């Protein structure tokens, strides 16, 4: 059986147009961690490092913010990513929520 030649159609690539995922997505959701005085400071620091991949210094800064101010803004992201972070933080039983950024 003779092979049928199928014209190959490739997408046109415009080198001047790039998709910037962070710019294209709505990053108007805040991940906030609230103070639960029961949580150990070292534990909170460890969880921030694990979930966000932060270094110790940055994780401790946010932990202290939670401790002193009652809350800390951990991330401003698009909805799905922010939800992902909240799920991860709550798996460790940290009091984290997702809030809409003020317009």
């Amino acid at each position, binding site marked *: 059986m003779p092979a049928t030649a199928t014209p190959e159609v490739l997408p046109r690539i415009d080198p001047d147009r790039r998709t910037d995922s962070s710019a294209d997505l709505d990053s108007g959701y805040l991940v906030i961690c609230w103070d*639960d005085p*029961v949580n*150990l400071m070292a534990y909170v620091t460890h969880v921030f490092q694990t979930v966000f991949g932060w270094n110790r210094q940055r994780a401790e800064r946010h932990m202290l913010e939670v401790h002193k101010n009652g809350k800390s803004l951990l991330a401003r992201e698009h909805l799905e990513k922010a939800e992902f972070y909240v*799920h991860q933080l*709550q798996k460790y039983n940290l009091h984290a929520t997702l*809030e809409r950024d003020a317009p």
Partner: protein
Amino acid sequence: MIIIQAGPEHFRFEISWEEKELLNVIRLYPHVPAAHHRLTKGRRIPDGAENQQLLEYALQSQREENRQLVAALLNEPARFAEIETGFRVDFTRGEIEWLLQVLNDVRVGSWIALGSPAGHPEMQPGLSNETLSHIMTMDVAGFFEMAFLHALTGEPLTGDA
């Protein structure tokens, strides 16, 4: 409980007989009421009810997984090798990670059972046998959390957030 060997992925501890008994505190897992977890404090999230349900499913699935890991650990006597002063036990980094989740669930669950006090629960008025039991559970879970965190970080640790 002391750490005697810490590699990048494997950790060896020595625990006393009493500490091994206290580790049974993880049998209380899951201790935090499922309804405790809220996705948001505001009401401006699209599909809020659906997303809240997704969070509950995710946490329920994780609780079930951790519950099975707890049961497996407690039903694995060979894991704890008896030595002169108590037991020697090995954990991987991954095992320590889920043990931390389990221990903190037990700690937070006891704190919620105490009425989520802002200060030290020992200082609350009206201590009863029940509240003392919750306080002891919190302290025991916290003790093991600190030991595991110390193993992961290599630094002495103190303090509540």
